[in-house]
């Protein structure tokens, strides 16, 4: 499967990645190779039934465990006001 320059630019934008034109060029062939690998995996389609009999997701009981201490949480924030993490304004007023 071939990725066009346009595809790569779009994916990069969604992923908030700033790529140079050279990098876009490079990824269009590299990402194609990765995706092609999935075509090989598709050959295992026959065994799908077996995959479906995998055990269901494990579920835990609704018991409370200790959350992180305030000190640790706040130390993770590059910038804060009171107990809040500060980020650039995300909603523009109209």
């Amino acid at each position, binding site marked *: 499967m071939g990725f066009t320059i346009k595809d790569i630019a779009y994916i990069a934008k969604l992923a908030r990645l700033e790529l140079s034109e050279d990098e876009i060029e490079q990824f269009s062939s590299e990402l194609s190779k990765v995706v092609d690998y999935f075509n090989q995996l598709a050959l295992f389609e026959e065994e799908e039934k077996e995959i479906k009999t995998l055990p269901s997701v494990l579920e835990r009981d609704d018991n409370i465990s*200790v959350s992180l201490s305030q000190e640790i949480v706040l130390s993770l924030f590059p910038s804060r006001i009171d107990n809040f993490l500060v980020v650039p304004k*995300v*909603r523009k007023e109209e």
Partner: protein
Amino acid sequence: MEFNITIGLEVHVQLKTATKIFCGCKYFFGATPNTLVCPVCLGLPGALPVLNKKAVDLAIKIALSLGAQIQERSVFARKNYFYPDLPKGYQISQFEYPLAIGGELPLTDNPKKKIRIKRLHLEEDAGKLLHELPGGIKSSDSLVDFNRCGVPLVEIVTEPDISSPQEANDFLQTLHQMLIYTQTSEASLEKGSLRCDANVSISPSHSSKLGVKTEIKNLNSFKFLQKALEYEIDRQVEVIRSGGQVIQETRRFDARTGKTYPMRTKEEAHDYRYFPEPDLPPLEITNQRIKEIAMTLPELPWQKRTRFVNHYSMTYNDAVILTSFRELAIYCENVLRKAGKIEHKKIVNWLKTEFIKELRNYKDFKYAPSEANLVKLLQLIETGRISHTAAKEIFEKMWGNNTKDPEQLAKEMKLLQIKDTTTIEEWVNEVISSYPQQIEDYRKGKKKIIGFLIGKVMKLSGGQADPRLVRELLSKKLNSN
């Protein structure tokens, strides 16, 4: 030009669990920001989600209440987008294979109309963003509280079956009532445990094509939902009438102006690049589990209403009032069951007027008189031992202390009607000898004067004589001689 209105709702319901959906952090509204978080819900590298069984059970309970088909196998998926309230950069949700599909919810005002449910799925809530500083101070930044990250949610998506803002309001109210009945959610619009987005489009009545829809986000009260839709429909009508076209967009409602405004969203915002969540195998739900949960379902509000109408021959509107919440419905039914021969209509009247009036005053069911004591009171009226007016006075005193016996109270308050004929006859004789002129007038044919004489006897009895007996004894005396 007439228009058809097409509305669909997306409702988010926070589930009533002790902990979050994928970690053991507890959550409650109003906690100190960023204190109910851990590596899992903060999306720190290497942390792995573990599904909360209770959240799944509650979601199944809601799905069953709506008559939805629980899927044997549902799959968690990553919904990818960048926003500061989403520390992982994706939300764990369900996409292609939701927990349940189908189902319906009957409206309350018009129970014949059922709004079909398209799908119901489990997901995690995102954090909360503040756009101004605490205290309402303008800020050039946004503030993030991650406490809400990972709170279990059920998203319920309706088919576009709703055809007016009132119906949308009705749907949300009925859903809210069901969630409270089933104890699956706090379902508080104010606290954000029930949130609603609405899709709305209009199209000329003669056209079979659907119009372009807009989506109004975050309607956090029943009133706002209705108001926002009313405004948005008027706006769309105006756009079309003036020859324009409605643009598909997301809008928000401003409660202060009563208007909706476009929200700036980037054009590729809806490309979420969903893929199956690699950290969680598919969720399989056995029939046995569904059966067990089905057994915990209470009778649902709309089922109770139908049964009340059929069993207790009350009107549908009365049934709506008496089933407005489960505790009230159970109370009313107990009274109706225990009241023996008293006509249902009389009991229903008492419940929907006197009882509800006091309940509004006291605001809490714990102050209500016991069912048995209310039945006793109704029997005192039924046997004529107290008047209807006296009963109201006694009933007021029965609140706040549910062991107060109405008969005892009637005695203390001197409201028991005196039905002893000897006692009443004494008062009758006294009145007859005190008003010879009036007696003569009566015997000459001025029959109306009996009202005056009854009044005199009642006064002598301190208002306690049974007025029917007084009239009976008085006329007997006046007509015999």
